[in-house]
């Protein structure tokens, strides 16, 4: 998928929030934002594997990886960790990792997926 095509795909999701302000998002918006920037990383990663010298793609990847890191940290601090590397983002007397909803749980059970 070309990057313009990917951006087209992302545009089909209506902007319900300010995309570059993950601090202001609620749990569901932030998770949606994480899904979007993570997908951008997933896609550009494969492109770079076969085009490792494409400077524009490399700059785009760096930008999206930065956004993803920031959003993952905010999510971990506010709601709990999505990966083991984020478990220290907030002080808690519980092991928050296992208390987070699993991604196949239905929305009505309190998950925001």
């Amino acid at each position, binding site marked *: 998928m070309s990057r313009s095509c990917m951006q087209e795909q992302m545009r089909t999701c209506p902007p319900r929030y300010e995309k570059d302000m993950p601090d202001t998002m609620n749990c569901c918006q932030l*998770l*949606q934002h994480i899904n979007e920037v993570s997908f951008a990383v997933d896609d550009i990663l494969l492109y770079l594997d076969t085009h490792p010298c494409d400077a524009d793609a490399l700059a785009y990847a760096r930008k999206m990886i930065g956004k993803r890191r920031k959003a993952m940290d905010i999510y971990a601090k506010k709601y709990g960790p999505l990966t083991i590397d984020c478990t220290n983002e907030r002080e808690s007397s519980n092991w928050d990792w296992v208390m987070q909803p699993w991604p196949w749980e239905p929305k009505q059970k309190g998950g925001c997926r």
Partner: protein
Amino acid sequence: MWNYEKRLQYPVNITTPNAKLAQFIMSQYGGPDGEISASMRYLSQRFSMPDRVTMGVLTDIGTEELAHFEIVATIIHQLTRNLSMEEIENSGLGPYYIDHTVGVWPQAAAGIPFNTCELQVKGDSITDLHEDMAAEQKARSTYDNILRVVRNMPEIADPIRFLRAREVVHYQRFGEALRNVQEKLDSKNFYAYNLGFDAPCMATCKDC
């Protein structure tokens, strides 16, 4: 080594269970062209590849297929939640229910269990990359077949469309990896030798 992230690569929220569709879509979990078949194929083929680019493409696509495996499992799980006994018996899911209740087990739509014979690791980069390109097209065809059935059900069709689009992208990347491998070979005879067997040093050679 892998790390888990507690989210789906693409979200799934199915509110209306449907036993028949669960049985159809299950083919992309454990069927001949399903996601586990894809992931096992790519992750296993990596070791005989001639260079880091090809190993990278197989690693990263094989990893993404694991994420797709989880998306398909979630679709099946959410389609089989809260089914009545009547729905199970009338939908054709009955035989599956007897063996697995509504657990998620890898099988094809017609009930054939997942089988490694559905994938190949030939130890030859030209052969394996052609198989990978074919695998992506076979999975794309299966998703097209599923989409004809679920076209009027957006909560199911939406994640299926995402998965289908990824097959097309992966096909493209495998094509580029194949071209990259062919450029290392004798253009007068691509088959003169197998890079993964006759010239295995290439991955660590200085000029790679």
